[in-house]
């Protein structure tokens, strides 16, 4: 014989059960949900989409970037060329230089104006075998050859 408890327990009708809510939600969930959903669907007009932003940037930035790159490239080339020119000059022999200067239409004064001579340079140019004349000796030479005075 079934005991009363078991009989009742095994004959439950759905309509007799209370309708209870078993599930819970995080605090403030329904307060925050509308804002979250609104943010998903509504795009503010003043904010451009990334693709529009980037295309505008590329439109203006690319030509400037290209110009800068060209300037850098040619700048490097010019520097390289200047070094090459110097190296080329160094390769030219002294004899060729003298020949060039002699055959050029530059006057002695013009040549001297191109050169920055100071006392040290003069001392470097002096050959120990060349006799240095003093003032009185110069005066004797000038008396003998007055035309030399025009050349000094």
């Amino acid at each position, binding site marked *: 014989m079934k005991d009363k408890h078991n009989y009742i327990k095994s004959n439950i009708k*759905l309509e007799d*059960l209370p309708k209870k809510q078993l599930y819970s*939600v995080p605090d403030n969930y329904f307060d925050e949900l509308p804002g979250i*959903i*609104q943010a998903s669907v509504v795009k503010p007009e003043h904010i451009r989409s990334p693709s529009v932003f980037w295309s505008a940037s590329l439109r203006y930035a690319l030509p400037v970037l290209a110009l800068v790159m060209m300037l850098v490239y040619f700048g490097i080339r010019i520097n390289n060329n200047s070094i090459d020119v110097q190296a080329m000059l160094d390769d030219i022999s002294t004899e060729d230089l003298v020949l060039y200067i002699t055959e050029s239409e530059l006057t002695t004064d013009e040549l001297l104006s191109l050169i920055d001579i100071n006392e040290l340079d003069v001392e470097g140019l002096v050959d120990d075998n060349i006799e240095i004349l003093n003032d009185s000796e110069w005066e004797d030479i000038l008396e003998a050859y007055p035309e030399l005075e025009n050349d000094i």
Partner: protein
Amino acid sequence: MEDKDLLEKLRNKESRNYGFNLLVRAYQERIYWHIRKMVIDHDDTNDLVQEVFIKVWKNIEKFREDAKLYTWIYKIATNECLTFLTKKKKRFFLPIVDVENELSAKIDTNASITGDEIQLKLQKALLKLPDKQRIVFNMKYFDEMKYDEIAEITNTSVGALKASYHHAVKKIEEIINTG
């Protein structure tokens, strides 16, 4: 606020955002619980609720005013639930019983689910029903909706719904009483 007032705001460009906010606040809880009873997990429910309202936003222009706004939103939510559960079964190549066991385990282990033994037993018994039958049962038993409304939401005849609900009740009672 009545549906027609909400719709007026939604169809006006200047008040659309405000109208949508009002709509979400008006229906979010009903839609949430409708989905939650099906998918059990809060995070899954949260994702689906957002999807539902995003679809409402995108398709509000297509809404025909011959149906109630609430019914239309409920229909979207129902479809999202069923699609989600179908995908869940396909994604992991799980047979139906395994998905049932997975949802049943959520009832046992989820801290946000509490209740006495018989209530938990009822929830687990519901998981044994096919998804479509379960959703009809939920709408009738828990939400106390009319058969006409459920018919519109599920695109099913009133007669078929009555038969489905009757069989669902018998099956659940059997499970509860023999479990």
